[in-house]
């Protein structure tokens, strides 16, 4: 029996013993790194009020469902691609220019959108043109705030939105799947409707990249593709602007693209939809259930022609 009663396997290996300082340093550095990630990550909580007037009381879809089943062709055309490629969208130093027929041409940073406007939670139904739907708790503010800020001139009749253009990093933009950059538009009265919001968050947190970070449009009575993601430019214009899906297939995707169960897509029915998470399909509602707020915008219009 040895004097110190230490077994061989209780003795630290000499190699490890000599590296002890480096090991402690690296573990410290690691914990610092994790801590700083917590400080600066997208997990930052937003400050917002809860809207009762326009929000639905339907059960919301889970964060996981909302963030891993997306149509965001810039990040790939598969439903899971946007989640998988999310980090390829670089939102550092993001600015949005507001121009066109306005008195105040301004450029806003992504922090401006979080700090300058009254954020509220709006729980909206979202109906995709592909006949599926979700209920999403967006955090955002009414687009009318931007309109007030910009002060459009009498010439402005429409708003044109433009999304991010970065073919070097965005995998979907390496091919001509759509006319890039993605473009959308609204008539000015549609844009002023209190239902129309710009969203910066979801479930109380900053928008994940795959959902259109840092700022996106939400128009809940229109098919999902109208709600353009990752906006870089908002222009007030006189004439009806070009929109990407309309350029792709003019007979299938009109400028208005209001949710309408009575006007089918030329290739499939729009009568029913699958709420994500449910097995049986449910009936699609006129204007996605928001008719009381928006039907008056289209009075006298033939909705089979202005689809």
């Amino acid at each position, binding site marked *: 029996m040895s004097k110190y009663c230490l077994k061989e396997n209780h003795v630290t290996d000499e190699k490890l013993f000599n590296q002890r300082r480096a090991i402690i340093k690296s573990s410290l550095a690691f914990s610092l790194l994790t801590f700083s990630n917590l400080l600066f990550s997208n997990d930052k909580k937003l400050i917002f009020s809860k809207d009762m007037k326009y929000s639905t009381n339907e059960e919301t879809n889970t964060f996981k469902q909302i963030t891993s089943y997306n149509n965001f062709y810039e990040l790939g055309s598969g439903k899971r691609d946007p989640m998988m490629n999310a980090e390829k969208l670089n939102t550092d130093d993001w600015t949005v220019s507001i121009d066109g027929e306005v008195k105040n041409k301004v450029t806003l940073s992504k922090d401006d959108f979080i700090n300058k406007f009254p954020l509220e939670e709006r729980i909206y139904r979202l109906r995709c043109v592909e006949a599926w739907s979700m209920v999403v708790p967006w955090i955002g503010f009414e687009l009318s705030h931007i309109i007030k800020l910009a002060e459009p001139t009498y010439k402005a009749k429409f708003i044109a939105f433009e999304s991010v253009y970065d073919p070097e990093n965005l995998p979907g933009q390496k091919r001509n799947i759509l006319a890039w950059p993605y473009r959308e538009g609204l008539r000015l009265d549609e844009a002023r409707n209190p239902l129309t919001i710009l969203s910066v968050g979801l479930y109380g947190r900053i928008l994940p990249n795959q959902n259109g970070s840092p700022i996106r449009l939400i128009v809940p009575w229109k098919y999902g593709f109208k709600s353009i993601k990752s906006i870089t430019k908002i222009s007030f214009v006189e004439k009806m602007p070009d929109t990407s899906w309309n350029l792709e297939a003019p007979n299938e995707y009109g400028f208005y693209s209001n949710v309408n169960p009575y006007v089918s897509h030329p*290739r*499939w029915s729009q009568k029913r939809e699958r709420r994500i998470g449910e097995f049986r399909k449910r009936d699609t509602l006129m204007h996605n259930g928001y008719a009381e707020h928006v039907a008056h915008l289209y009075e006298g219009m033939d909705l089979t022609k202005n689809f």
Partner: protein
Amino acid sequence: MLNIFLLPLAILTSYIFLDDEIINKTSYVITLTGYIALVYLVITLSLPLLKNNNFKIKTRLFGISAFYFSMIHFILYVIDNSYDLTLILEDALFRNYIIVGYLALLLLIPMYLTSFQYFKDKIKDWKKLHKIIYMVYFFILAHIYFIIKADYYYLILFSSILLVIIILKRYNFYKLNE
């Protein structure tokens, strides 16, 4: 049959049920079974091209498995429409992608039946009959074309595969007749 149809089916079923990363499971499994049927069709067409063709029996198994997968694809579509005949009929009459889908499915039936000895004995020209596999393939391509919104990647991929198979078959044909 166990290795070629039942095992993949079991793996597919457990994957669909267990993987909670798949959000829209019904839609996902309908699309996937359709593409599996097409891949099996590609294998059925390609196996006879192999030089050391010891795969005669397996070619047939891939063919009938393609038929089974397309039937599952179809049955899931019917279930997804809650067995509602008016919806299914409306699709069958007015939706191009459904119409060509039915054509492909219907043309698979005579090939399926004549893959059994009983019908092979009755119909001596069954091999000629099986040339309709190219029509089936064409209707499947049309089926995909009519449902795509913008990204034609898979359509181009499977069209190119058909083209290569046809060229190789021609090449083999001339070689044999030299």
